[in-house]
């Protein structure tokens, strides 16, 4: 019971952009350190020390960028859709800020996933691009992010802009499970999942561990980027308040 009271108090505090700005400033250095160390460790481990694959040789190493970018791009969308729901229901200012901040990060990560996948596809499959269910649904994810960004800019009134973007985010969240299961529901060129939650992963541990470190690094990087975007958005939106003016004067 005490936990729920604490969570509720935390939820209410989140309603204050100023409180969020101050607390996130304290988290940032630690999260940045975590992200940076995981990304460096994972990249060096994966690219230089992990063994080559028995069929693909060294070209499989793009997995260390491609898979984390793709996984976080979908997680980012769920965060954005969740923030959209909170914004629509509770009209929480911070939720709107988070939703707005997720869109450019998610768009960048999706683009990285598409780009690295294409580079890998040429030597492995023999083509840069194919309109299979997985690749097409990830392309739709990319356009959804761009759509959310565009809708924000399409309205003069900030209130209507965030409402419209929130509805689009919610509608688009249907796409995320489609991306995840597309390789099982339909015949596709893209292979099914290698890292499985319910059964043993079909990747050798020497390759899996650096991949998990990279995944951790990408998630940490996402949180860092989200905090940085949110903080600058908060400063912009609250630019007329006393505390931001005091911060700028200091």
């Amino acid at each position: 019971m005490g936990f729920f009271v604490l969570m509720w108090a935390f939820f209410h505090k989140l309603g204050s952009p100023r409180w969020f700005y101050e607390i996130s400033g304290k988290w940032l250095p630690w999260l940045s350190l975590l992200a940076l160390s995981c990304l460096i460790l994972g990249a060096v481990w994966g690219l230089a020390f992990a063994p080559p694959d028995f069929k693909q040789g060294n070209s499989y190493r793009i997995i260390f960028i491609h898979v984390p970018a793709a996984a976080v791009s979908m997680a980012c969308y769920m965060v954005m859709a969740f923030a959209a729901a909170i914004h629509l229901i509770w009209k929480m200012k911070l939720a709107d800020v988070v939703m707005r901040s997720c869109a450019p990060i998610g768009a960048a990560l999706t683009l990285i996933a598409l780009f690295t996948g294409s580079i890998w596809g040429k030597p492995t499959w023999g083509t840069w691009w194919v309109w299979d269910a997985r690749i097409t649904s990830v392309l739709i994810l990319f356009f959804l992010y761009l759509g959310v960004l565009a809708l924000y800019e399409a309205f003069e009134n900030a209130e209507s802009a965030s409402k419209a973007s929130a509805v689009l985010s919610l509608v688009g969240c249907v796409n995320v499970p489609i991306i995840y299961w597309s390789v099982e529901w339909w015949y596709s060129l893209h292979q099914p999942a290698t890292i499985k939650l319910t059964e043993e992963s079909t990747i050798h541990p020497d390759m899996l561990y650096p991949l998990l470190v990279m995944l951790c690094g990408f998630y940490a990087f996402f949180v860092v980027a989200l905090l940085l975007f949110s903080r600058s958005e908060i400063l912009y939106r609250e630019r007329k308040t006393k505390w931001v003016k005091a911060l700028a004067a200091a």
Partner: protein
Amino acid sequence: MHPVRKQRLIVVLLIVAGSAIAVALAAYALRSNINLFYPPSDIAAGKAPVGKNMRAGGMVLEGSVKRDPDSLRVDFIVTDYSANVPVTYVGILPDLFDEGQGVVASGQLNEQGVFIATEVLAKHDENYMPPEVQSALDAAQQNGDKAAAPLN
């Protein structure tokens, strides 16, 4: 919960449910187009169009690859281990193309039931392992040690 917020929560859930149903219906209606290729058993059952551009996918049957010594022509059989489709292709195959590997070929099925491919793509599976592990597995298999199953 405040009644206004409760109402908004219901609206949010309706938006998600409504779009999910719409997408599910669209995907159901387009299901044959969302599939990238036809498996050999669908082709054998006559579900695939003859003389139209489409894709066939499956595994390359072991021992079925015949390379023409004078040209880039390759003949092989695509199988899903319940039906077979013979494929003819003239061109360069991707590096991963091999017997027992997945492929997706695009082209046309002719009247004789032979698939004339204009492009052959290799379908990679979800297994990743170092070469030493694979050779150890092969050696174990040759020794008749069935206990050493592959990673999956």
